């Protein structure tokens, strides 16, 4: 058994091998590896008796799953209209400058990825962004610097 097979097997033991177990298993893989690899998708398909295309379809549907390898900390900046009007562009510029990557990219050390997301429901405190599961609101270039420095020091 490969490492991936073992990881998937553990998740299947935990969540079951029915079709409705697919989403929790995919989330589990994502939490561990920060993306769902093709190898993991095939392994899940095998365990759940689904086609690999089906698993791929589900994995690409949800914004919070990903089939492309990402960094340890995934930054998602809200691009929807309210945040946009609250100068989200300035936020993105600052992030691109600090991290030296463009939206859609991952830093060389695989620590950060920068992505867009749709409305996070924090419009009243926009601009807003997520880093993994944590929300940051009322962003300014200054607060961004602080937040990123904090994450840079985390393991």
């Amino acid at each position, binding site marked *: 058994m490969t490492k991936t097979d073992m990881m998937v097997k553990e998740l299947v033991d935990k969540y079951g091998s029915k079709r409705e177990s697919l989403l929790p298993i995919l989330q589990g893989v994502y939490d561990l590896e920060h993306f769902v690899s093709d190898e993991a*998708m095939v392994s899940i398909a095998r365990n759940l008796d689904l086609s690999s*295309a089906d698993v791929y379809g589900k994995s690409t549907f949800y914004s919070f799953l990903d089939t492309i390898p990402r960094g340890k900390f995934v930054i998602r900046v809200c691009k929807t209209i309210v945040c946009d009007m609250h100068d989200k562009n300035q936020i993105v510029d600052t992030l691109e400058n600090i991290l030296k990557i463009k939206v859609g990219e991952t830093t060389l050390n695989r620590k950060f990825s920068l992505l867009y997301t749709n409305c996070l429901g924090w419009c009243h405190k926009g601009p807003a962004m997520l880093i993994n599961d944590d929300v940051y609101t009322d962003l300014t270039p200054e607060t961004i610097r602080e937040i990123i420095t904090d994450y840079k020091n985390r393991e």
Partner: protein
Amino acid sequence: MESIKNIISVKINGIDVSIEKGTTILEAARKINVRIPTLCHHEDLCVAGNCRVCVVEVEGAKNLTASCAAPCEQNMVIKTNTPKVRSARKDLIALLVSEHNTQCTTCYRSTNCELQALASEYNVDNNTYLSVLKPGIQVDRSSWSIEKDDSKCVRCQRCVRTCAELQHVNAITVAHKGKDMKISTFMDLPMNEVVCVNCGQCIIHCPTGALTERRYFDDIWEAIGDEKKHVVINTAPSVRVAIGEMLGYAPGAHVTGKMVAALKKIGFDSVLDTNYTADLTIVEEGTELLGRLKSKIKDEDDSVALPMITSCSPGWVKFIEHMYPEHLAHLSTCKSPQQMFGALAKTYYAEKIGVKPENIVSVAAMPCAAKKFEANRPEMKSSGYQDIDAGLTTREIGHMIKQAGIDFSEISDSDFDSIMGDSTGAAIIFGATGGVMEAALRTAYELITGRDVPFDRLNIEPVRGLEGIKHAAVKLENCLEAYSFLEGVELRVAVAHGLKNARVIMDQIKDGTSPYHFIEIMACPGGCIGGGGQPIPTNDKVRMERIKAIYEDDADCKLRKSHENPEIKQIYDEFLKDGPLGHKSHKLLHTHYTKRNRY
């Protein structure tokens, strides 16, 4: 009275309709011949309700209602053609067109496309919305059989539902969402690298030119124009009962003679019959079955795989290779009639007519998309050349007849050429689900007992019709000397069509609970008459008409058992001298299979 309670009435465009509870508005309207346009709806598939082209007004409802998805309710008042409805539909269609690579002048589906028909019916002016067609969409031509052009996809998902619901393959899926949503394979791999079995069912369920068969007829026109080439064509049984639909006839029209005449006019040097090798298949496959029964029952050899399963449907063959690779021993080793034909065309036939095999171009007219892949399997070169140079669909043949400027309705009948043009009723019925089984039983029963199979006029009704899985049992009594080991045995057979039903059969085999000796499986619903290369639309009504024509043809034949075909007797006398399953037939008419990956 339960049934009366379940009847409700609604008013559609002022007309009262009584229908059963649960009937959709669309179905109720069809009942009184009120046509509501549809796009994502297909009667073979579950409701998707994603295109909303079928909207109608329901009195009291705030929004327009998608009629394909909404069930009728008691006393509903429905209007299908109000200005509000028409303008909503027109807008929806215009939006679809704005995303569409509208290239009707160069599109294979032009004049047979549901989007084109809707746009024309609703007089959609292309300037209503700016084109938002995504740039740079590549056509996937990696597969021998299927061509996928996402720029012509309206994302109705009929293909995805087909591949999942009818075929249980799930080679294609809906990936991404919103404006990025697309029909994709696993990791967006090319079609030839995934589990697609090439059945082409997605093609005949696609409303547009997004999914089509790879076309090879231009190459055939080249070959026909080449003086040095001797171009032969063999035509499958299900093509003759469907080709009329390409040329203005109703489903099930008998146009065999016209088809043969048209193919001769096109310039094929010889028009021969796949039915001939269908008869040959029966003799080979029947012998193989009796051999397996003997080993199992008489010699008690448990290594022999029973039930034996037919192998003439290449979509089914690729399905079992992917999905049940440990059970390939159950497949008959017989090649399909197309491939038997190819192997003989460049050996036996070439010798007979005195043409060098390298100058023969051998073409097959097929109801099928998977036949293209089959023709290109690396092992299909037993004549020393590629046995079949091209497999064309019924649709491609229809196009060729139109391209040749032939007036199909005026042309008079012609007969198949010889040799390899003779056939029996048993071969014609190969085109319908259950046909191979019926043909095999007619021959096998007679070989075993010396008597006719005990069904009225040789019609084995239990294996006919559109039921997904059919069974029959025949008791073997008073067997001939050579088959005394079968005395008293009840021969149990099953027939499945559509790969979802094949899965049921295979799961029984996998669990060791299969009660059968012999099984016929066809990849496509209805068998070859419903094949992925047949005219569009294909639905149960059309399937039934084509099937009816097949059995009428069979009933009209003088000879209705494969082993009575005089040209079959001749080939065993002159060429396959060591008989069925002999050395030569092994080399030319039998094959082996490849284990493939399911994921």
